[in-house]
């Protein structure tokens, strides 16, 4: 037995996101037209898969035809030695100011549902 839904972990995440979107839209008596997601670059989520799966899953739901926009969030770290806050641009997690290696990731690991655009009865 080989099922498509067993291949990628984005499927469970997509389902989760879609449920939240539909729930929020429903509460406001509207219909979700588009959504803006922020996906951390080191979240372990493949943005293209997530977008594709949310769209697939939305078929036949009140959110059918949902437009999915994704912003990629680069990792942001804070150096525990000197307090410097920096964005990781290349593949280096050392503090650019003091060269320290003990840095904490404060952004770039999360998935955030930023904005849902609604249309419908009470929306516009």
């Amino acid at each position, binding site marked *: 037995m080989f099922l498509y839904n067993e291949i*990628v*972990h984005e499927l469970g995440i997509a389902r989760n996101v879609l449920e939240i979107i539909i729930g929020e839209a429903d509460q*406001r008596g509207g219909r979700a037209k588009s959504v803006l997601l922020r996906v951390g670059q080191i979240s*372990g989520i493949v943005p293209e898969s997530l977008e594709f799966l949310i769209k697939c899953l939305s078929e036949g739901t009140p959110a059918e035809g949902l437009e999915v926009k994704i912003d990629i969030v680069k990792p942001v770290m804070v150096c525990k030695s000197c307090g410097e806050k920096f964005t990781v641009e290349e593949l280096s*997690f050392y503090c650019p100011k003091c060269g320290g290696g003990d840095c904490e990731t404060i952004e770039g690991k*999360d998935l955030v549902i930023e904005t849902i655009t609604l249309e419908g009865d009470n929306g516009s």
Partner: protein
Amino acid sequence: MDLELSRKVDFRHEEIASRIKEKLYKNGTLCLNFISSPGSGKTSLLERTLDALKETYNLAVIEGDPETDRDARRLEKLHVPVILINTSGTGASCHLSPAEIEQAVDDLLLETPPPDIIFIENVGNLVCPAAYDLGEHHKVLLFSVPEGCDKPAKYPVAFRESDLVLINKMDLAPYCDFDLESLKKDALSVNPSLEFITMSIKKGDGLLEWFSWIEKKLAEVRKQASK
């Protein structure tokens, strides 16, 4: 109408992971989460490790396997409790999640006496398991020489999230254009506090150093537990 939500999706079940960690500390049980590519030697390493440490410590294994019970059967021969989680039945075959292992951890901690060490053999995959904290104390990345030195660049999150890299199949280094220093350098650039042990599980090289590392980490957990 724009609905500004800014809502974080807890897709990693972080709450469950912290709950698991708390229970482990309470029992003074060290938990190690093995991540690697398929075929780098996780099960072989576990066989050698269980065999060497089982007389001294109470050990247990949580085995993540997409489909089969092959690895679990291999490990059961060592007369250590093994809990198998077939991940293809849980919705995502690519990794274990905290929600899946909590029951297994609870059951193992009920044994008398509770295990000193729980080993989690994650699904062979350097991408997804790296993104999930299972409540373990340390992720141990098992790398094998034929995989090539570009792995830290290709899978930075796996190297970033791990505390120790075991470099296995060192006996194959002469046949693989393997450059140990370049691997270490790239791995350290994504995780400056990473430790390394080179080994050949087949030949038995490096195993003693690995066992000492485990004992050191167990002592740290027990010290924390007694506080």
